[in-house]
């Protein structure tokens, strides 16, 4: 059995990736454009390992020392724990001073921004618009309908961020993008990392970081984390 550990470790890695793909959770870790490629090579890896197992009766013994500890740990995390997206803890690690830098990641947002209906604009789209400073008049009578998770960004006055992570390659390059939303007594009805669906209109108001465009909601509905929680 010991001599088969390399095959087992590689096979578990491959099957883990395939199962994530089957369950639709690969996009919690990597950009959707890489999903097909990742699944294909996980399958090829498994196929070659099966061939190796079938054709090898004796295998050169691999030394199973401390060097295998990292992969065993990664596989333990991977296999035993449910797949999860990033949380608000990473928001505080990565808030960039200039939101427009993070929101410049998007490749589809320009089409949305020039759309006639602002209802379809996402958190990421609005973050980009706000960062571009179009002037307060732009936001008058604009209907907003966005979803994201709550982050206490220290804005005070019951103003929180409703945010998502934007990724270009995988979760490792995720940058948080969000818009300020006023939810009165938010702590009594919600918690940080809670996903919400918000409808409302923008208004300029005072926060701990000066006067800002803030979304004043008509409704705030709790939702579960969507299957695809990131922005691209």
């Amino acid at each position: 059995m010991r001599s088969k550990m390399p095959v087992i470790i590689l096979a578990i890695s491959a099957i883990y990736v395939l199962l994530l793909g089957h369950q639709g959770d690969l996009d919690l870790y990597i950009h959707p454009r890489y999903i097909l490629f990742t699944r294909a090579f996980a399958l090829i890896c498994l196929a070659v390992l099966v061939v190796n197992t079938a054709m090898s009766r004796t295998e050169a013994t691999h030394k199973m020392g401390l060097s295998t500890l990292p992969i065993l740990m990664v596989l333990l995390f991977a296999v035993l724990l449910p797949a999860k997206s990033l949380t608000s803890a990473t928001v505080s690690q990565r808030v960039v001073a200039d939101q427009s830098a993070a929101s410049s990641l998007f490749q589809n947002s320009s089409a949305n921004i020039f759309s006639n209906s602002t209802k379809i604009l996402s958190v990421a789209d609005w973050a980009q618009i706000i960062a571009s400073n179009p002037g307060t008049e732009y936001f008058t009578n604009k209907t907003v309908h966005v979803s994201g998770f709550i982050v206490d960004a220290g804005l005070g006055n019951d103003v929180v961020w409703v945010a998502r992570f934007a990724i270009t390659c995988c979760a490792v390059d995720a940058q948080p993008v969000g818009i300020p939303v006023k939810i009165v007594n938010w702590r009594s009805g919600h918690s940080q990392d809670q996903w919400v669906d918000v409808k409302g209109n923008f208004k300029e108001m005072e926060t701990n970081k000066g006067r800002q465009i803030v979304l004043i909601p008509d409704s705030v509905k709790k939702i579960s984390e969507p299957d695809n929680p990131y922005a691209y």
Partner: protein
Amino acid sequence: MVSRIVAFTKNINLRGILVLSLILLMTAYYRLYIVDAIDASIPNKLQDFITLSLSIFIEAFPFLVLGSLLAAAVNTYVSHEFFHKILPKKPVFRRTAMSFLGFLLPVCECGNVPLSRALMIQGFKPSESVTFLLAAPVINPVTIWSTWAAFSYDGSILIARIAATLLIANIIGFVISLVKNQEQFLTNSFAKVCQTPKSYGGEADASNRFQLRRFSRLFTHEAFAMISMLALGAMIAGTIQTFVPRDILVGIGSNVILAIVAMLLLAFVVSICATVDAFFALSFANTFTAGSLVSFMVFGPMIDIKMLTLMKTTFKTNILLVISAFSLIQSFITGIIFTYAF
């Protein structure tokens, strides 16, 4: 017909297949039916560490598989003389030609390490292999395309990335080539493999069956050698990304020298694949100088936590330190030149 089936199954390790299938079925059952019922109340930071580490691991995994497949294929099906025939004989031209091998073998840097090992087993010198290893992640159609897609507003960034990578890779290869006994830079276990290449992967029989067995065995060997290092690199990068505030690096982005230093540090830590790092760098385009972004995109594909742990399977620490130092200094100089010249 029956005797054929019996003869076929006699040669198959059915017990091994059954054991492997059982393990995989148990894993699949657990993931499909049990894991989501677990209420794992893990603190957010620890959860994010796990997510980030797994993200790097999963992102790099297909490239590692692709590289190991190519390495196994090169060692099984490409004759010893092929690359020696197509590449120039003179060392300086040979290394330059090897800088462009990435066009034939466009694999992420994770995949280039098993390939470079395969080349050395086939008789290439460490200096030539290192030149390939440092240049190939950038000098390939995928990376060039992605860099252009990200920085199409400034073509000089792409040109600088390509030129600097070619220059640095060949300079470092040249420096290593000055040493007579280059095999001293290889780990003991890998040096032994290079000395007896024909025994690597088992018997060298020309029949299809034995070639397939050799190919699958070589693939397993290479992929396993890489995957542990990949996991280590992923966890180190995940740790730093989770527990070291990135705004410490970003806060100094406005200073020309400090911006380059910060981006070089980030390149080392983030360990992102060269084929996609341009998009990551793009997110800092409004905060950091263009020169620092070029340094990031030159240094990162050559040396980062993940690459160092992968290269450690093949090269000794002393030569890795030399390669890292040369790459770092020359990438820094590249950033300075780009900042003031463009």
